[in-house]
């Protein structure tokens, strides 16, 4: 396929603000995948982001520019980015009141303001922020149907600008273990150490389960974005009686497939701010029995008791679901089998072809196969 055109991707931080380190998170992974696709299609791609000073780096052959103005005002930095670019793709919805460039695409990674701590003013601001993106951009690509449904309930006309492309999983990289042996049950939490990801829910429930079931072990596979959280957790773990049955680590992306393969049950206990979680998709593809909360886009991935268990974000519900899975190996196996088979519907190839169509339509210039 050949096309001519240029896309400038505006993202808060693909690299750290000093431009020296890669940031790891769902949004960043998403952007790297999109960059790969756009370049294969023949687009010239560059990235513009916040910086602690003005800098320019080249990573994997991509020019990334940091804008130091962000230290004073991210809104001003954004205006400068607009000035330095032509056609733009926004990697996420802008939280500041700047205007979007017309003819651009904005990516929504799911609703994020559904926290119990959100005040009424904040919530109406966030609906306003979403409305602005929908009014000014050409198209909003949402990673789940939940964002679409929420917006349609408030702004049905604007919701017509939303196109849904669920997240993807590489089903060749993430694949089930040949056989799991029956005696012990390993329960994995593969998320960031963040309240919104429900780490406290997992720990509280996990300890109760450990106390009740001697054949169970827990595995925390967490990030190190905020080292003080890790040391806090490590200290806490040391105090636990069941410490020897809790595995704790931070792993590179390359090691995650084997981490999933070693797990029987994966818990995605999100409290709020969730789309079609990569972790959930990877757990499904790895043929694990998944327990997920009914928050955000997770409800688009898990059909309760078909390919996982869907629960509200509460300790009692999680405890009940885990006890059930521990005591019913047959259920675990059935869910795991259907988990893998549903994951195949979220293939990387499908995600790429949907995006390729959008990139051609919005940024295309001419293209031929």
């Amino acid at each position, binding site marked *: 396929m050949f096309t001519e055109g240029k896309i400038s991707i505006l993202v808060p931080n693909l690299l750290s603000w000093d431009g020296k380190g890669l940031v790891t998170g769902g949004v960043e992974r998403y952007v790297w995948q999109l960059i790969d696709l756009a370049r294969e299609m023949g687009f010239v791609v560059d990235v513009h982001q916040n910086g602690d000073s003005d800098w320019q780096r080249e990573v994997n052959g991509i020019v990334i520019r940091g804008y130091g103005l962000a230290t004073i005002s991210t809104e001003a930095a954004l205006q400068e980015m607009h000035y330095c670019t032509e056609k733009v793709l926004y990697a996420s919805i802008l939280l500041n009141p700047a205007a979007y460039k017309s003819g651009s695409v904005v990516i929504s990674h799911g609703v994020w303001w559904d926290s119990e701590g959100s005040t009424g003013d904040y919530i109406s601001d966030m609906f306003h922020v979403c409305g602005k993106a929908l009014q000014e951009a050409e198209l909003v690509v949402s990673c789940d149907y939940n964002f679409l*449904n929420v917006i349609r309930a408030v702004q049905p006309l604007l919701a017509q600008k939303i196109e849904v492309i669920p997240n993807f999983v590489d089903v060749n990289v993430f694949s089930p273990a040949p056989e799991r042996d029956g005696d012990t049950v390993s329960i994995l939490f593969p998320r960031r150490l963040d309240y919104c990801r429900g780490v406290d829910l997992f720990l509280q429930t996990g300890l109760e389960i450990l106390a009740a079931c001697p054949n169970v072990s827990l595995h925390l596979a967490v990030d190190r974005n905020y080292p003080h959280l890790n040391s806090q957790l490590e200290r806490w773990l040391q105090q636990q009686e069941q410490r020897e049955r809790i595995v704790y680590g931070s792993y590179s992306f390359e090691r995650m497939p084997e981490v999933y393969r070693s797990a029987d049950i994966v818990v995605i206990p999100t409290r709020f701010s969730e789309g079609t979680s990569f972790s959930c998709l990877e757990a499904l593809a790895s043929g694990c029995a998944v327990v997920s909360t009914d928050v955000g886009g997770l409800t688009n991935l898990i059909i309760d008791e078909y390919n996982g268990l869907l629960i509200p974000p509460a300790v009692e519900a999680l405890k009940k679901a885990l006890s059930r899975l521990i005591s019913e190996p047959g259920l675990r196996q059935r869910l795991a089998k259907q988990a893998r088979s549903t994951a195949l519907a979220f293939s990387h190839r499908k995600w790429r072809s949907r995006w390729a169509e959008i990139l051609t339509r919005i940024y295309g210039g001419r293209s031929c196969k």
Partner: protein
Amino acid sequence: MTKGKVGILTTNYYNPDGNRIIYGGAERYGLELTKLLLELGYGVAWWQVGTGWQKEMLRGVPLYSIPETGDNFQTCPRLNQSFYEQAVQVDFAIYFVTFLAYPQVLEKSISVSHGIFWDYPSFDAVIPTEELRRERLRRLWLAFNGPQKIVSVDTATIQWATTTWPGLWHKFEYIPNFVDLNLFSPSERERKDGKIRVLFPRRLTSVRGINEAARAAEILTKKYDYLEFHFVGRAHDDNLEKEMVRWSAKHPNIYYYWKAPQDMPKVYQNVDIVLIPSKSTEGTSLSCLEAMAAGCGVIASYVGGLPNLIIDGYNGLLIRPTVSNLVAAIEELAFNHDLRNRLGRKAREVADNFNLEKWKRSWAKVISEVFK
């Protein structure tokens, strides 16, 4: 001895004049819920809007009508008030639509959300100013807070509520709709007449995507003579039904009729592809579940609760309900026999999970928690 009496308040089970029963998803839901309550040992009585007539919904289950018609801000405070006063004889209450729980509720009560029903552009004209919209939301907030539990048929409603009032999720129980797997099952024998049949099994209303489906039918029947379209469902009034009859008569291979609920399983068995192209106002559609249970190739829109039932490309297709998307999706399934079969098989497999027995167990749990 009964465990107590449950009063259920709804808007319309029959038309307000009491003459025409409304065959819709919500009404079938009401019937199953009534049967479950009776099985569990409760007495049941229904109330709705009407001119004062009284009927029997099932043996021993009275349906009273309340002559209050006024509604404002999408709530019915006077109906609510009359019910509250008349329901002194009941122990527990179910508000069959969430907004009926405004402004006051019986202490031990549950409300039901059948899905987001205001998500279409012209709703703006119903509540046209910011002030009115705020007042509507304020009332809905009170209605959500009254009952001890809100049973929601889909997660979209819960998500909307928690993005509008975070923390409200504590109130909600997600109990998706049900299908009777014994009644709805795939056809045993393969048809060999070379036709591909497409079914639109919904009420003929704009929000259900009737206009888009009809246009797609015109385009496709002109193009392929082996495609047949069956529109099976009632309209809100006789004129529209007559118009559909005239329209379908003009087009070879397009048929319009309607069937009683007990005849629907056969209708599904006779088709290959089922369209659920709702544009708004959708929960976990019974029609969609029935089509899945019948092992059909389902083409659904991504509206409301439908993404709770269909995973795109796994057990059906999820599309934005436009004419061109419908045409493309129907062509994809009509030409691709293997894909259609695979989606249909998985649809049936997933439908197993929404069986009526499971729905009853989930409801029985909520009932036992609240009605005690």
